[in-house]
């Protein structure tokens, strides 16, 4: 390699670093401006709406897609919000719970699943769902840094915050999917007639869960649970942990172990995994882990009654 080529190579490398860094910041700040105005959709809108209403509502629900699709907020009054989000877990919920105002009196329902707690593979990666707020929200940035889930490059290229979400953000910016002022975070799952045959096929499939391997609680999941417990102790809120129904739940062991763990932490837990165990009604289900609108309504009525008992 002669000196001319060396100079050219160094020039290209430096130019790429400078141009990509500058473009990244332009894109990042541009997307920040756009995304702050987006209040619909799961890419960022729902999170923005949560941050907007979190300290003004009386009842909040956290959890994964099962929380989102199972807890019908229409039964819990207008001042309630369901922050259930697809593909998230205890790490995501715990981080958001810790952003709440400690003084505000609220009922917080945390939907939890045994899956996270007894999977050896659970690593808290779901916290990445909050990366759109990395370098924008101090608390979330701090938790993300501590989680070791943030790729090295995200500290240089901020636009990684919006990885995989840009189309959804732009779509909801141009054309919001719904009126967010009337949205309470609950998304019922409707099963069309033409989907029922497939749904029945899914429900008829055998469960392949290895119940015997369920022994130890996942330490990462436990640490996030502990973080919620610490928050519970220092806040003015009522916390209830809930597990919603699962179709033909093949294991009892994990539910019992989780209940024991929550009991030991002094947290209230309602395990409703087998609520529909004896109801031979496929119309309650969308698939094996998700209730249909009909199932969600039935579960929510039951949950409301149970909550009244627990709170009173």
């Amino acid at each position, binding site marked *: 390699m002669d000196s001319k*080529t060396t100079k*050219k190579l160094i020039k*290209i490398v430096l*130019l790429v670093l400078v141009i990509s860094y500058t473009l*990244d910041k332009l894109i990042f700040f541009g997307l920040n401006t756009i995304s702050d105005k987006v209040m619909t959709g799961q890419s960022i809108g729902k999170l923005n709406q949560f941050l907007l209403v979190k300290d003004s509502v009386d009842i909040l629900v956290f959890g994964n897609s099962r929380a989102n699709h199972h807890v019908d907020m229409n039964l819990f009054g207008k001042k309630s919000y369901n922050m259930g989000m697809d593909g998230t877990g205890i790490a995501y919920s715990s981080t958001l719970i810790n952003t709440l105002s400690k003084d505000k009196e609220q009922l917080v329902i945390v939907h939890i699943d045994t899956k996270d707690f007894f999977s050896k593979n659970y690593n808290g990666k779901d916290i990445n769902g909050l990366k759109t707020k990395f370098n924008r929200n101090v608390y979330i940035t701090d938790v993300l840094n501590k989680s070791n889930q943030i790729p090295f490059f995200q500290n240089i290229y901020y636009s*990684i915050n919006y990885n995989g979400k840009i189309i*959804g953000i732009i779509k909801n910016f141009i054309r919001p999917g719904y009126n967010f002022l009337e949205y309470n975070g609950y998304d019922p799952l409707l099963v069309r007639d033409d989907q029922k045959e*497939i749904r029945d096929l899914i429900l008829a499939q055998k469960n392949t869960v290895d119940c015997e391997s369920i022994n130890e609680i996942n330490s990462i999941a436990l640490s996030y649970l502990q973080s919620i417990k610490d928050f519970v102790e220092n806040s003015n809120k009522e916390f209830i942990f809930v597990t919603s129904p699962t179709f033909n739940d093949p294991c009892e062991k994990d539910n019992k172990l989780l209940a024991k763990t929550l009991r030991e932490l002094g947290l209230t837990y309602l395990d409703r995994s087998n609520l529909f165990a004896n109801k031979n009604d496929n119309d309650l289900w969308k698939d094996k882990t998700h209730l249909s609108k009909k199932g969600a309504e039935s579960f929510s009525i039951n949950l409301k009654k149970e909550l009244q008992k627990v709170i009173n």
Partner: protein
Amino acid sequence: MLFNSIEYLIFLPIVFIVYWLLKSNYKYQNILLLISSYVFYGWWDYRFLSLIIFSSFIDYFVGKKIEKANGKENKKRWLLVSLCSNLGLLAIFKYYNFFADSFASTMSTLGWEVNDLTLNIILPVGISFYTFQTLSYSIDIYREKIKSCKDIIAFFTFVSLFPQLVAGPIERASNLIPQIEKRRSLNSTLVKTGIFQIFIGLFRKVAIADNLGVYVDAAYANHEINNGSTLLIATIFYAFQIYFDFSGYSDIAIGSAKLFGFKFNRNFNLPYFSKTLTEFWRKWHMSLSYWLRDYLYISLGGNRKGEILTYRNLLLTMLLGGLWHGSSWNFIIWGGIHGLFLSFEKFTFSKLKINTFNAFGFLYTFIVVLIAWVFFRAVDLNTAINILGKWISLEFGPIFIGDINAFVNGLLLAVTGILIDLKIFSSKTPLEDYGTKFSTIRLSVVVSVIILIICLFYSTAENFIYFQF
């Protein structure tokens, strides 16, 4: 070590800098390349380095013996040592379980129960690639096309050179060894084309292929409940996933090699723009298809022994080509479909006295390739039959979208990738030389834009599909 990993991002510049600091002596550079290549491979599993060293040693030794041997018979005997050693490695590590299992199943069908003969064997990454590379070396010496390599370090470097070690391109000794045995230089053309190709390859892999893979994996995992339309969309997505995945890998490999002053042969040339399957195979995984042509098809007699034997040779070559990809009936059927249609084309062209089809040929080629991909992607034969059964029985309906973001991202990026291909296709400048079309500033802007697209769209890093072969 994966090309799309942080490790490679650190590894490549370090090796690059030390390599060019040693430019005064290419033999020192070769030692560095050899050590670096072993580090690159050992990062995955250092135990299997012994297989590469064994294969390299055998062919280095055999190459010399073939050259020195008197008479065709003696040369053939030494060639057999190479064939048995390399194919033996493949037989043990890649095919033993497949044949043991097939044998047990056949015996069971005939009423004889055989104990489980399969072994717990890990498939060493890249074994199919480097064994073919060393085999071609010995065969070329036997055919007196090349001389044996006298420099053991150069030969070992030829076998293990890290850009092409794990998934090709399968470089011929006639192309690579002469480059290893002389001083290399790096000029601005190589720098520009190399950098451009590395980044376009990364874009193809982590942005396009990995995003398409999200939908494909979900659809194929639930093939029993998904309808024909969903599986058709998933298979079309897979056609582009595997293309962008493997061509992306090849681009990074060829681009990386350029930075060390090496020129690899191209491995893809816009294969979906083909009017015939024959043309497709001249553009898809070219280093393998030419290998199969030169060392298998021609060795079987090629088209020199009459019409019937030509078709047999074509079919046999493609069946073995299928088996090269993996030890399962799916790959054999995949190869068989290609072999049958290549034979059909040969027959049609000879009877109609034509060289290619008209514009409908693009559609015909894509449909045949698509049907064959079902066998390639499906985890087993039953899955493939189930999917094709849904198409044949016209079991079509509303398409399952799943994660809308992943679906739209995959679709949008695939269209972008195809548009880039069309632009390159119309420019008549191959991708390998496309970097020369840019000034330094324009190239920097293009690379920066690619980096940002990757930041915004990269999907979960997966292994390259061809690593399993």
